[in-house]
């Protein structure tokens, strides 16, 4: 007949090892099922070779405007991590994402003919401590 303390110990073991095992599986499997995470914080090597992605609205009047995705909203700012998804997305999904980015950037879609995603090579100036754009390549162009 197990005592009350033995039963409590069994619960403690089950909870503790289950949580630790789940964390270990996420870490080893590089899984991101939040809040289970692989805890990859700054884990990649960084070098001087840096690129960034930028969405550019091409207006019907021939002008261009880089989209500044709601810079004051921290929930929206990180959506720029989804720019690479545009390359793989189906046409409808791609259009939906671009319209959403135009919306949160305060740009009227009716004035825009297309939105392109540019990859920009950057270089760091050690004197000015600033990054400067060296050249850009269009990765994908989405007609509206």
């Amino acid at each position, binding site marked *: 007949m197990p005592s009350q303390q033995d039963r409590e110990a069994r619960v403690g073991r089950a909870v503790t090892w289950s949580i630790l095992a789940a964390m270990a599986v996420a870490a080893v499997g590089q899984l991101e099922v939040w809040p289970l995470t692989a805890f990859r914080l700054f884990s990649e090597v960084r070098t001087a070779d840096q690129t960034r992605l930028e969405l550019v609205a091409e207006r019907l009047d021939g002008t261009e405007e880089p989209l500044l995705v709601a810079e004051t*909203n921290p929930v929206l700012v990180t*959506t720029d991590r989804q720019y690479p998804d545009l390359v793989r997305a189906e046409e409808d999904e791609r259009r939906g994402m671009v319209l959403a980015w135009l919306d949160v950037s305060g740009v009227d879609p009716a004035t825009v003919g297309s939105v392109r995603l540019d990859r920009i090579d950057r270089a*760091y100036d050690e004197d000015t401590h600033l990054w400067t754009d060296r050249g850009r390549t269009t990765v994908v162009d989405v007609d509206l």
Partner: protein
Amino acid sequence: MTGLWRRIDQRLVAPGPGFRVAEVQILLAAVIALRLATRDWTLVAERPAALRDGLTVLSWYTGIPAPWALVVAQVVGLGCALLVLAQVRPHLAFVGLWVAYTSLTALWGSSGKVMHNDVLTVLVAAVFLFASGPPRSGWSEVRVRYGWPPRAALAVLALAYFVSGAQKLVHSGPEWVFGDTMVWVLRLGLSAHLSGGVEPVGQDLAHVVAEHGWMAVSLAGGALLLELTAPVWLAIRRTRIPFVAAVTLMHGSIWLFIGLDYSAWPLTVAAVAVPMALAPDRALWRRPAAVSAAGAPRR
């Protein structure tokens, strides 16, 4: 090896005083309440459904929450936190608090980037979903059910920090310390505020560190060493307070140099490690009748 595991297991499920589990639960509730109270959660409602991304516990919900619903979750969470602090139905209130906090942070972080700011708090607090605190009359009672939850929380902390360090070695190797990685982390972080990040307070100091390779290597080496040795620091009672100080310094320097707010991490570490740094018979803020956790008879 079997002996080592047996010793770890015996330490994990050794009896502990009721006040300790209550203290850690209360401190974690205070940390979560602070996180809930200091953010405008209605910003989540401004994100179009097309830009929601990432796999979370809340991915089953695909809608856009109304601002009022987000405020309700925040208020319910804060109400639950008050109940935990007052130790009124603390277990049920803690579950409510955890659900509100985890839901809001899961929604907040579903924007393409894996957000780690709150993940440690969520995981450590998850232990207390299965832990019951003592009744008011049992504050100084010593039982297994009060012993394992704070130790499980320490184990979660230790594993999280260890994995963070191990991933750096797995993905970058020693170059993470001895190469220029920290230099470029600083330089990229310093420019992040220009594209929406928070402007770092210690920009000038960060430039100095980035310009002096040995400083950047020392910073990277210290951080990696701290993360990899976290299980040792947390296993020994006397090194738990120094660990709190060390992680506060590490996360504080990240905020100072590149503006990233990881304050929930040292606060969570403190919530668990400070009470667990005390002698087993010494309460953090209420001195009960003398108890001997180590030698207490099992009941």
